[in-house]
């Protein structure tokens, strides 16, 4: 399979992994119910997945654990902006400004 075909297959499978959970109970209607323990456990999946994807991106530099880096400063600024203001653009502006500003200062 060519790289191009593999990529489109990936999109289709991610699409299925999105539409099937979304449509699941809407299509099934009232016929099936999810055990409440499962429902409660599933609530933690998105937060866990988001953190597992972001943490290594931000805290690891070239394979080493390096918490003090410009990316982490950018993340702190973005999270602070998200916590303090409701403007949806602000976290991106704050995070990018801190990252690029620090890099320019440190000459990295």
């Amino acid at each position, binding site marked *: 399979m060519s790289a191009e075909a593999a990529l489109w297959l990936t999109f289709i499978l991610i699409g299925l992994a999105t539409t099937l959970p979304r449509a699941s109970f809407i299509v099934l209607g009232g016929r099936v119910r999810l055990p409440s323990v499962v429902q409660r456990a599933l609530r933690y999946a998105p937060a866990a997945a988001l953190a597992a994807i972001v943490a290594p991106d931000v805290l690891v530099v070239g394979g080493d654990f390096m918490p003090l880096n410009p990316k982490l400063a950018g993340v702190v600024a973005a999270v602070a902006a998200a916590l303090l203001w409701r403007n949806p653009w602000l976290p991106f502006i704050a995070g*990018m400004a801190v990252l690029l500003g620090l890099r320019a200062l440190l000459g990295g």
Partner: protein
Amino acid sequence: MPVSPFRAGAREGFFAFLPLSVGLIPWAMVTGMAMISTGLTPTQAMGMNLIVFAGTAQLGTLPLIGAGAPLWLIVVTALALNLRFIIFSAAIAQGFRGVGTPLRWYCGHLLTDGVFACCLEKLLKVDDRRWRLGYYLAPSIWSWALWQVFALIGVFAAGSIPKHWSLEFMASIALLVLLVPLAKQRPMLVAALTSGATAVLLRGVPLRLGLIVAIVVGIMAGFAAEHWSKRGETA
């Protein structure tokens, strides 16, 4: 001439959701830019955007696609990011009583966090099937259109921005901004911190398997934290 129930519902749903929908614009643009900075062509990027139609799943899987992670790992990660929709779907299902199966699939495909939060209450309350359908579909199709248009703008904007601006960092910020409101609940914060720490510790594990372990450990930690905090309340 009296307004049809579908149109009355559509109008009410659209205007209820309109102010919230502004929040979609930066997401869509950032997702468009992130797809390009991962190395997708504009056609591939818009293909992904049309097929997947889910910011979190797109932004979350892009680093894996970029790193050449195995397909099954990408799909499992997308599933983990989308598991919340099973709960949303279960909660909102009653809002589609009386609606045919093909239309239910379409409505399911369009389900987003924003429309779910905005429309759930009235969907469950109102009796008229046509009114409910309009009330759900109008904001959902509006979300879909906004998402496609602004992702496309992001795709073309990304091409004219220099590489050293590190646009891919916008994707990390986007994922964190999604995490912030979730993590305001204590057990959710525990889940996120545990999962993040585990992912960092296991970063050397081949095939990025550490990611899956981290997600599972995070879910268990959140669940345990919820359990203990409840016991603390009753004691």
